[in-house]
Each structure stands twice: as structure tokens, then as C-alpha cells.
């Protein structure tokens, strides 16, 4: 499950970067407002996201090879990762550290609310799946 959560985090970070940064161009490659510490954390996060994706897929392959992969746990892990990262990004990055905002030049509140609710929903789906997987595992 942890392995798939890693993949989930990587995917969500990748989606965030690709969809919102590149396709929509909502927030930019470089925000003039950010301090150097923001730049550093962004670079670290970006690199960690790439490494997490590569490591996640190899760990996944390793689990399959050992026949240790539980599909229901894996699904739960992906959702936990997706939701966890989304919420973390929404709360810590956007609000607490104020690294960047989702969109500039408009009232950001509805976007923030939507972003965090979407993250919460994904996280809840992950939790439900995890509990169900655990039950099935025990009864099996």
C-alpha cells in the first residue's frame, strides 16, 4: 500500500505540474514573489516527485515478482497518495508557506476550496478502500 501511495504522490505532483503549470499556464514557471527558500523547496519537491515515480514503479514490479501484491491494497494506496498530496499541497504549500497560488489575478478562495475538497474526497476514497482491503485480507 505504501508503495502505491508513493506512486500516487508522484502522479498527483506530476499532474499538478503538467496540467496546471504547463497546459493551463495558471501559475508560472517562476514566480517573482517567491523567496529563495521557496525556489529551493520547489526544486526539491520536483526532483523528489520524479524519483518517487521511478522508485515507485520498480518497487511495484518487485511486489508483483514476489506475488506479494494485494490489488485492493494497491488501489487504496494510489488514492491515499493522490489525496494526501493534494491536501498537503493545498494547505501547506498554498496557504501556510504561500509558495504559490493556484491562479493569479482572480479571487483565489473558490479555487482553494475546490482544490482541498477534491483532495479530501480522494483521501476519503483511499481510506474506505484501505479499510475494505484490510477486512478482506483478514477474512481471507
Amino acid at each position, binding site marked *: 500500500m505504501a508503495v502505491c501511495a508513493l506512486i500516487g504522490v508522484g502522479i498527483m505532483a506530476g499532474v499538478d505540474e503538467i496540467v496546471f503549470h504547463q497546459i493551463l499556464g495558471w501559475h508560472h*514557471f517562476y514566480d517573482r514573489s517567491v523567496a529563495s527558500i521557496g525556489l529551493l523547496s520547489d526544486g526539491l519537491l520536483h526532483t523528489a516527485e520524479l524519483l518517487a515515480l521511478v522508485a515507485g514503479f*520498480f518497487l511495484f514490479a518487485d511486489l508483483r515478482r514476489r506475488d506479494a501484491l494485494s490489488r485492493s491494497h494497491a488501489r487504496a494506496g494510489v488514492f491515499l497518495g493522490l489525496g494526501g498530496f493534494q491536501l498537503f499541497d493545498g494547505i501547506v504549500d498554498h496557504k501556510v508557506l504561500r509558495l504559490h497560488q493556484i491562479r493569479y489575478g482572480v479571487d483565489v478562495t473558490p479555487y482553494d476550496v475546490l482544490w482541498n475538497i477534491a483532495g479530501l474526497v480522494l483521501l476519503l476514497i483511499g481510506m474506505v478502500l484501505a479499510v475494505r482491503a484490510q477486512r478482506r485480507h483478514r477474512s481471507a
Partner: protein
Amino acid sequence: MPVHVHPAPDLVGVGPSELVTGAVSLLAAAAYLAVAARLRRRGDRWPVRRDMSFLAGAAALAGAMPSVLPGGPFTAHMAQHLLGGMAAPLLMMLARPLTLALRALPPGGVRHLLVRTAHSRPVTWLLCPPVAAVLNVGGLLLLYRTTLLAGTHHQVLLHAAVHAHVLMAGILLTVSLCHLEPVRQQWSLSWRGGTLLAIGAAHAVLAKSLYVTAPPGTSYALADLRTGAQLMYYGGDLIEIALATVIAAQWYASTGRALLRSRRTPPPRMVSKAL
């Protein structure tokens, strides 16, 4: 602000350092292919994909000439940096040239010298992942955050020295991270992964800072600077993914071998439990 036309560097066209680079890569590729062919005639197994990888690396090195690369001067410089400093070392080192040389050379003489050098204390130090990383990042900081880059436009030797350093530092980093060659010390997965994370982050931060602040003493057009910085950022990502894949694939292969062994000979503890 009037658009400042970048003064044409002295090295437009094919300069002496580019001729030397081209000749060296051609010679290296020819030598590699000849030795690999000899090894195969002798009956050794040496995968063709290694030949291909070395050829591609040598081609990347030879093709890394600002005069033939598209884009403005800074973008071309950055493409050269990516090809010569990152892609070429990775592709060439994946072909395991040192292993090839050690297999092909007769015992004693040159072979002994090569082993002695590869196992010597200074080389072992240089191949420590954090040291190799500092050599890389330090070189980049010097190049882009001092007037060094501006200086290379007027001094042929300095220009050549910078590119030689970028190439050598790239080779050191690749060897220290990828564990493909028989060197003295092999570093653990966490050291290599941590170094890759740190250097990837440093590379990304430097690329982003170049997007807004040009190297001191240079006068590149803003659009050129920005394209070059983005090229550095995303090109760095590609190399980083490639390096991470090499490291992860090695882990996968070695744990796979361990798994096979443990399946073939179950540890005694498990047997007693089954009884």
C-alpha cells in the same frame, strides 16, 4: 531598453576546441568498436547495445557544437552543456568502457596501470557521490554566477577548459551513481539516491534562477535566456530520470538474484517450521 545584440563570440563556426572534441570522440568511438569486435571474435559476450550506447554518447559529444545547434547563443550553449556534460557521459559510461578495456588488455603493463589508477585513493575520493556532485554543482555555480561564462567568449583556452571540466565532472558523477565499472568502493543505494535528489534539486534551482537572472557580464536577449533556462530545467529532468532508472534497475536485478537464490535454497529456519 534597446535590444542588445549579443556580440558574436570568437568561436563562431568550427573553432579549434570543437575540432579537438570531434576528433577525440571519433577516436574514442573507433577504439571502442574495435576492442569490442576483438572481444567478440575471441568468443566473449559483449552486448551490441553497449556499442550503440557508446556510439550515441560519442555522437552527442561531437555534435555538441554551439555553431550547429539551433536557438540563440544562450540556448545553444545550454544545449551543448546538456549534450556534452550530461547525455554524452551517461551514454558512454553505460557502455562500460573501463570494463571493456580491462577485459581486452593483456595482464601487466597498461592494464595494471589502469587498475592501479581506478583503485587509487584520489580516484576513489573523486568517485564518492557527494564529492562528484559538489564538483558538478560547484562548476555550474562558477560558470553561471561569476563572470566565467563571459570570459569564455573571448578566451579559447578557458572555453575549452570549461567544457573539459563539464565533461569530466559528468563522467565522475555518472560512474559514482551508476556502479557499472569495477572501481574500489561501491556506495549504498541511499547515498546514491540522496545525492541524485540533492543534485537534481540544485540543478532545478539554478535553472529557474537563470530564467530571471542572466550570468554576470553577459548580455543575452531575454527570450534566449528564458528558452535556455527552460531547456536546462527539463533536460536536467530527463537525465535525472535516466539516472534514477539505472539505479532502480540495478536494485531490481540484484534483489531478483537474491530472491532466486533464496527460492532455490530455502533457509533452514523455514524448513524446520514446515516440519
